[in-house]
């Protein structure tokens, strides 16, 4: 399993891995917001957390369709499925999701404080947003694994994956943003939405790989 994690991380980092695409997209989205919204610093700092979350959500969706398709194209997926007696398939998928998250989503979380400065956010809000992104984005990847597994046999499944999983990621977005606001706006709570966000991630850490495994097994042809 460690070998699979290492392989996927290496693949993501080498040329053509696409790890940079997400972060460039994230940077582009956040960099154009101040131009679109205008120079109202107060407004920017108010919508900052929400814009960071929306940007991170969309950037995460970008690379997800390749999660299993690359393995299917070269035949590795068959062998991963065949090895399910030795390595449980949901566990294999969980490891692939973790590797994908480490390579293409963790950089977004790390870059988010810097981009928070673009949005004139206060330090507490920046910290809270980075923390909620760290806890919440794994859920997006894990939900995305289900969509990627369903669309694995479609040659241009990228858009379909995003459409399938977008409704399911809405709760992550809602609780992520409300926890970020809760950290700076006084009457709003921080801990409650943050804990729900953590619960969503843990829930999909179990359900996502199992559902994706079922989809992959039935899609083999």
């Amino acid at each position, binding site marked *: 399993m460690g070998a*699979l994690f*290492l392989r996927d991380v*290496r*693949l993501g980092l080498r040329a053509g891995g696409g790890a940079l695409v997400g972060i460039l997209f994230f940077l582009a989205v956040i960099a154009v917001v101040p131009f679109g919204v205008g120079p109202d610093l107060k407004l920017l700092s108010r919508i900052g957390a929400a814009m960071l979350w929306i940007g991170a959500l969309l950037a995460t969706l970008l690379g997800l369709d390749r999660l299993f398709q690359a393995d299917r*194209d070269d*035949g590795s997926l*068959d062998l991963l499925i*065949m090895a399910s007696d030795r390595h449980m398939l949901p566990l294999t998928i969980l490891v692939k999701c973790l590797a994908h998250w480490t390579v293409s989503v963790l950089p977004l979380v790390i870059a988010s404080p810097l981009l928070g400065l673009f949005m004139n956010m206060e330090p507490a809000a920046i910290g809270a947003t980075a923390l909620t992104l760290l806890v919440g984005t794994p859920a997006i990847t894990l939900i995305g694994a289900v969509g990627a597994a369903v669309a694995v046999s479609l040659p241009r499944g990228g858009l379909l994956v995003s459409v399938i999983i977008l409704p399911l990621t809405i709760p992550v977005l809602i609780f992520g943003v409300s926890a970020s606001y809760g950290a700076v706006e006084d009457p709003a709570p921080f801990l409650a939405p943050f804990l729900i966000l953590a619960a969503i991630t843990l829930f999909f850490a179990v359900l996502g790989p199992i559902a994706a495994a079922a989809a992959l097994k039935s899609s083999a042809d």
Partner: protein
Amino acid sequence: MRLIAENLGGERGGELLFSGLHFAVSSGEALIVTGPNGSGKSTLLRIIAGLLSQVEGMLRLEGAPAAFEGLAAAAHYLGHLNAMKSVLSVDENLHFWQSFHGRGQCSIEEALECVSLGEIGHLPFGYLSTGQKRRVSIARLLVSDRPVWLLDEPTAGLDKASETQFAGLMRGHLTGGGIIVAATHLPLGLEGSKELALGGAA
């Protein structure tokens, strides 16, 4: 150890390709599956590998070594695709499959020597020629031990010398008590193997 199929039937895209297949392959034996294009050779191999489900019939592996419980767990599958990443080096690819499938008797260097590719372990897999890629894929069969080899057109892209070499590797596997099921158009150079012809009517 025996691989037994009884009344096996397989379909592809809703169309029945074969039905009522019976065969039994024991340790040290090879089964060569022949037939015209589209007669269901690959489908049969994928059914044996557990990647497709059969329409009817039974498939079982009797007396498998304790470490390999199901048929899929006891089988190496060499399909049309090589299951290697082109941006990773040959060594990295083989190293991954070795740790994922479990360490066998052969080390990676020995396996590459067996397919005469000892010198190129450091090259990215994508740089190799078609035949060299196939030979790396064959080396994957050697780095982890599986009693059953399922080979789908294993010699596609290989030159004469590599074919002879691969025949030697297969004979070695059979002598060690293994089973080979191979789908092919070309003679594999295995004497005394059983033959199963698919799609005679088609």
